[in-house]
């Protein structure tokens, strides 16, 4: 599947709405990696990601008929992906009896392992980053992921999360503080 296929998303959506499987496949191939990235970074459990991505695309194709032309498909897809991943994460943590972190709570006290060690290996740093992102709430993580990995503006993130832009900024602040608290003094400058 060639992702550079020179047809607009809108044209592919119209064809897919008429039942054109190839057009739907082009559309899917163009966006599947982004959906995968969003889900992976929000759900944070590789064993659950495929099911989450599957759920996103089931929703997309079920609701494609209702998609109005003139809107950005990518923005709509980001919203579907992020909300599905949040729901998926919450459902999964409930099943594991592992409560989601409270919105106002940021665990910022983990910078206690070997302070000042400049030679932490990459794997350990990655693990610490993962832990920091797991310790924040799913909404904070979603705001962080959409802002810094998907380069989404704050206003769009606010629409995805159904909250105000101020709340999004607070989510982002807390995610950054959590990362800093977890990794302060452990990275080579």
């Amino acid at each position: 599947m060639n992702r550079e296929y020179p047809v607009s998303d809108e044209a592919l959506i119209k064809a897919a709405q008429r039942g054109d499987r190839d057009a739907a496949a082009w559309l899917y191939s163009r966006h599947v990696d982004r959906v995968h990235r969003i889900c992976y970074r929000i759900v944070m459990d590789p064993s659950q990601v495929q099911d989450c991505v599957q759920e996103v695309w089931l929703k997309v194709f079920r609701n494609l008929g209702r998609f109005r032309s003139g809107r950005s498909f990518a923005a709509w897809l980001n919203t579907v992906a992020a909300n599905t991943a949040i729901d998926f994460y919450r459902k999964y943590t409930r099943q594991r009896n592992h409560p989601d972190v409270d919105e106002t709570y940021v665990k910022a006290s983990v910078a206690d392992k070997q302070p000042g060690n400049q030679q932490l290996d990459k794997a350990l740093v990655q693990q610490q980053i993962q832990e920091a992102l797991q310790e924040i709430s799913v909404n904070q993580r979603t705001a962080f992921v959409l802002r810094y990995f998907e380069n989404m503006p704050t206003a769009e993130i606010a629409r995805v999360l159904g909250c105000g832009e101020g709340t999004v900024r607070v989510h982002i602040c807390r995610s950054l503080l959590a990362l800093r608290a977890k990794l302060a003094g452990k990275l080579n400058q």
Partner: protein
Amino acid sequence: MENPRLSFEEFKALFQDRFESQEELLREYHSLVSIFKHLDQAPVPDFSSEEKAEIFKRAWRERPQKSSWVITCIDLLRQPAVTFAVGVIVGCIVMSAVANNRLRLAQTASADPLLSVEHTKYTQTYKGKMIEEFYPEFENPKIVLEKAASSSPPQRTLYGTLDNGEITVVWNL
């Protein structure tokens, strides 16, 4: 050392109140930029092509099926100009239906008046629902007011029938 993901300006806007000096702010920014570098080095493991194909196949198979002409109609109705035109046409149809019904109601009312009066040179005949309600025992009752001359007193007579027109009734009132 700027980071394309987190610019110093954005960092400053988020944390200005939290740090006392510009130096501290800059130091914290650089610390976070290092974290972002590590984030960049943690790529998301790709799905295999089989996994991708499987996800697409299932999602496409489980979508609701609609016939293409329904979709074409829905597509057409979603165009604002078409929606407006359809709205105007529906409005006209509703208005015309309402107007026609009103005419028909008026016609029904006028076909069966409460009281109608027919005038001739010497007589006035009163008939209609009101007279029928006064004399329910008669069929097609009517009261005729006759004046033989302008100075003579009027004479009132009730005309009607009984037993489906078999018996004619003439009754001086």
